[in-house]
């Protein structure tokens, strides 16, 4: 369940709860999104949007570090001469 889509905050329209709203861009289009749960999101930042409400700010550093870890793991694996079945590396 829970289709959540990353979008980029383009412009704040209203800051005051419970009516906080911003324009958020998804690929080629923009839509108004409720921002009450991400009051500190800034323009240019990415948020996860579910059912019209932004539920989190996406952390670019965390995202990069996951991708780097995975890349690193893979390189270690390839440099190992033979696979070790059973090894939990």
């Amino acid at each position, binding site marked *: 369940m*829970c289709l*959540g889509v990353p979008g980029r905050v383009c412009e704040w329209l209203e800051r005051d709860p419970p009516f906080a709203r911003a324009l958020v861009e998804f690929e080629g289009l923009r839509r108004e999104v409720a921002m009450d749960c991400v009051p500190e999101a800034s323009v240019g930042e990415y948020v996860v949007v579910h059912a019209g409400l932004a539920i989190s700010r996406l952390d670019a550093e965390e995202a990069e570090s996951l991708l780097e870890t995975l890349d690193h793991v893979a390189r270690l*694996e390839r440099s190992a001469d033979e696979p070790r079945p059973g090894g*939990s590396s």
Partner: protein
Amino acid sequence: MKFVDEFREPETCRRLVDEIRRATTRQWTLMEVCGGQTHGLLRHGIDDELRGHVELVHGPGCPVCVTPVGAVDLAVELAGRPGMLVASFGDMLRVPGSRESLMSARSRGGTVRVVYSPLDALRLAEENPKVEVVFLAVGFETTVPATALAVRRARAVGLSNFSLLVSHVRVLPAMEWIAASPDSRIEAFLAAGHVCTVTGFEAYEAFARRHGLPVVVTGFEPVDLLAGILSCVRQLELGSANVENRYGRSVRPDGNPSARALVDEVYEVCDRPWRGVGTVPAGGFRLRPTWAEFDAESRFGRVAGPAEEHPSCRSADVLAGRVKPTECEAFGRECTPATPLGAPMVSAEGACAAYERYRRSTATAGDEQ
């Protein structure tokens, strides 16, 4: 970083698949809790890719499918009353109640609208002051803040023709139900990334300890799913049972405090019947009494108690991973995607519907050869 394509990168996925295969000494049985994850796994064929190393059991993670028959029936009835409009998400429309779905209620003249957001339903109420707008509020913890915000906004603008028919459900009690079932085969859980975005994962620590099962918070893109599975497999091979977060770009340990506060202001935890499961203790949310003016049930009529499940439906066993859908007597006979008896046949991603589709395509092959 655009947070999408990076996590669909085929080369990264292939390496992760290799790594999972290499890391397993036997086949492990994992449950992905969330229907969105099931969708991603099946769409990309990840389950086939890992066959022999990891068996993925599809969990009860579709809030649409576990919505009790009585709630659908009440929504259908309200949609037929003059001056009333029932709105919900598109996936809720095809779910059958005891007699019919909202879709067929609409073709008989009922007033039913599909919305993308509960806030769009609120707008319908504002634009049509003479119409009673009822939003059928389904969804896990991810969706609850949006419906809570809708009633907060409704009160703030003094709207009296908007209400919620609440059927929200909570994920952790369902995981408890599965893990505690005596013959459960599940050895680790992929926890639902967007639910945890709201709730955090601190509550999972005790769960993992109590059941001795690894829990890995996992996202929805192929790279996320594979990274989550890899973490599970590594823990299982080492014999550990910890909570790990592999969806750190969206999930913090304490979730989203603003969203949690919003939910807590409007809702309280309650027992709730899940279709195909039975009543799950603490398995849902209901509006707090202070918000009763927005409660469609207290205004227009109660949801009838859990309807008798069909005697031959074994959806509880299927959801718990105890039996395969094909082992159920009703499967493919009285129970089909067009006439589902239980939750896993209702959703296209449900375990029974997935088997049914697979069976049809393989049977077709046999026919034509």
